[in-house]
Structures are given as structure tokens and as C-alpha cells.
């Protein structure tokens, strides 16, 4: 087909192919190479496309029967035995030696189909694919900090999030043969229980906590009296005051109350 001169300039723009055509075209190149190795010099376009379609359907049929064999054995990944059974299924029409006694002998791997494939590999010369294939380069992973939180993060977790908390190894509980353990003894539950016990101990005494809340100061409407009010609440664990401040605050409320009472007495007189 001769394109008019005006259109030749736009030849550099690549036409987008539908996704189904891309793999089909690559398969067509491979199939034409196989036909050439067998002895054909030319072919009709429709015949080549038909043979390519048959090859793609053969590949898909191999995959489907391999998957069904592996799923029937409650596996998700296909192995050599599944593939061998799948090739057997597809070769039964043409026939192969030993097809009638396939499952009499216990070893599936003795099959003549696999022997035929090894003979084919030994006898035929390699026909490398016509076009150069770009292999995907392995992504260089950036240095991830080796912390327990980062060890088992999947790709679904964004990297800018902080690491997962370290749950701690549960060495105290006895481990069963298969690694089973009671849910109550699992580390996630035990970790929470320890915190609860500490809170209860501290709440019972009523005064001193490991961490105290910061001092709160406020004025009451224009009276001029300063109220110093330190709240000790049993739920607070996140205060950041130092211990020296806490001791100073302990003394202050006593003094302020006395000052207040002294003030009241003076006014009455």
C-alpha cells in the first residue's frame, strides 16, 4: 500500500493497538518463526492468523486445565504434576504411548509426553525470538530501616507512615506442636492487659501517678483572685511535667487554701 506523500510525515506517530492485539501480534511472529523452521517459505495471511489463534487457545487451555487440577487438590499454585496432567488432557485426541494405562502406575512423571518433550528439546535447534526482548530491570529498593515494625509491611502501606508498633515476643506461653496457642495468651491481648493493671493500681491509691498533667491556671471574672487548680485524674497518662514540678505543685494547693482562709477571716473582722 502506497501512502500519499502528505501522510508520510505523520508516519512517525505510532498507532495504538487494542490490548488484545498486542500479544496476538507477538505470538504471530513466534508462530511464523516455527513455520519457517519446519520448512514453509510463505504463507497466506488468514492461515497464519488461524494458526496463531489456535496456538493462543492451546496456551490458555493448558493453563485452564492445570489450574483446575491444582484447585481440585486444594492448591493455588500449579506444579509439575498439574501441568503434566493438563498436557495429557490436550494430547489425548492425537494420542500418545501409554495413554490407556495413565493412572495404573503410581508415578505420573514417567509419562511418555514428558519424554517426547525432552526428545524434542534435544533434537530441535534453538530458535530465538526474532525481536529483542527487554527484560524488566529489578527495582533497586531504597534502604529500609531494619526495625521490627518495618519488616513485614506490604506494598499497600505507604512509606511515609510510621512503622508498626513492636508487639514483643511471647516467650512465656508454652507453644504447641503446630504453633497453635490460645487467643487469650496471644501477645496482642497480653500487652493490653498489662496497661490496665497498672492503671488500676495507681487509681486505687488516688494520688501519685507515673505521669502527671500539666498545671492549669485560670482567673475568675475580674475578682483578682488567682485559683491554682491541679487536677489529678486517674485517666491521664500523657502528661509531660517533670517530677520536681510535681512536688512543687503538691505543696502549693495547701498553701493557697490557707491563704484563702486567712483572707476570709480578715474581712469578717
Amino acid at each position, binding site marked *: 500500500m502506497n501512502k500519499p506523500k502528505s501522510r508520510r510525515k505523520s508516519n512517525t506517530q505510532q498507532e495504538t493497538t487494542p490490548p488484545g492485539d498486542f500479544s496476538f501480534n*507477538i505470538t504471530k511472529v513466534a508462530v511464523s518463526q516455527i513455520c519457517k523452521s519446519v520448512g514453509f517459505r510463505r504463507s497466506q495471511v488468514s492461515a497464519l492468523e488461524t494458526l496463531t489463534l489456535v496456538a493462543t487457545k492451546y496456551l490458555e487451555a493448558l493453563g485452564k486445565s492445570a489450574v483446575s487440577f491444582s484447585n481440585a487438590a486444594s492448591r493455588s499454585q500449579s506444579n509439575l504434576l498439574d501441568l503434566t496432567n493438563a498436557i495429557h488432557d490436550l494430547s489425548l485426541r492425537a494420542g500418545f504411548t501409554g495413554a490407556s494405562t495413565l493412572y495404573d502406575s503410581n508415578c505420573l512423571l514417567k509419562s511418555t509426553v514428558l519424554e517426547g518433550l525432552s526428545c524434542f528439546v534435544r533434537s530441535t535447534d534453538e530458535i530465538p525470538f526474532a525481536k529483542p*526482548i527487554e527484560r524488566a530491570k529489578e527495582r533497586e529498593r531504597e534502604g529500609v530501616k531494619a526495625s521490627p515494625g518495618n519488616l513485614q509491611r506490604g506494598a499497600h502501606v505507604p512509606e511515609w507512615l510510621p512503622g508498626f508498633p513492636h508487639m514483643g515476643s511471647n516467650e512465656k506461653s508454652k507453644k504447641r506442636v503446630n504453633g497453635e496457642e490460645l487467643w487469650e495468651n496471644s501477645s496482642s491481648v497480653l500487652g493490653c492487659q498489662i496497661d490496665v493493671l497498672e492503671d488500676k493500681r495507681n487509681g486505687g491509691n488516688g494520688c501519685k501517678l507515673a505521669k502527671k498533667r500539666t498545671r492549669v491556671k485560670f482567673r475568675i471574672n475580674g475578682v483578682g483572685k488567682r485559683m491554682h487548680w491541679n487536677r489529678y485524674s486517674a485517666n491521664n497518662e500523657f502528661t509531660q511535667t517533670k517530677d520536681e514540678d510535681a512536688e512543687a505543685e503538691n505543696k502549693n494547693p495547701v498553701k493557697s487554701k490557707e491563704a484563702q482562709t486567712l483572707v476570709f477571716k480578715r474581712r469578717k473582722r
Partner: protein
Amino acid sequence: MNHNPQSGDGKHDDDTALSDFLASLMEYTPTIPDELVEHYLAKSGVQCPDVRLIRLVAVATQKFVAEVASDALQHCKARQASVIKDKRDKQQKDKRLILTMEDLSKSLREYGVNVKHQEYFADSPSTGIDPASRDE
């Protein structure tokens, strides 16, 4: 799988032969690229991280296509052998081995694939009919 103690040695030989075959697969490069085979297998739902099994599938497909093509070649040669008249014609026709739909459909029929190819297409049902008999 039951293990027969008597055939243990035989099975060991088979295992070594099979492992040798799988090792040789890694050296042999099939015509169909690994990535293409992986694409079609993934389309069917196969999860297989082992490269040797993917090469096994590629080799099996290559063998299948080669068998179909060689059967078609034999049909083509058989048809030419019946038509040969002079020596000159024979040499010319050897170079003109063309894969046609006719040979392909004959060879695919043995493998269970029924391919029927229309010989020609017409514009309308009344094409080619004598114009005098056409109803207008």
C-alpha cells in the same frame, strides 16, 4: 502417591532424568518468549513462580505448533507431487511451499480443531446470477 519399595530405584532414575530435563530447559530458549507465555497463563489463572514450568509450557506449545505445521507441509507436498510434470516445475514448486488454509484445516482436523474457510465472499445473494433472471 504410594511408594513401591521394589520400584524405588526405577523411580529414582526417572526423577534424575526428569530433573536433568528441567535443567536442560533452562539452557534451551523456546521460540515463544517467557513473558508471553506468562501472560497467557496468567489470563487463565495459573500462578507459577517457577521459570522451568513456564518454559515447559512454552516448549509444549512449540512442539504442538511444529507438529501441526509439519503435517500441513506434508499435505502441501503430497498435493504438489500429484501435479508435477517436468523437473523444472518440481524445483520451482519446492521453493513455493506456501501455508494455505486448505492444508492447515486438514492437519488441524487430526488434532480436534475444526477450521472451515469460506472460499469466496459475495456482495449480495444475487451476485453472479444472469441479469435476465434477476427480479428487480
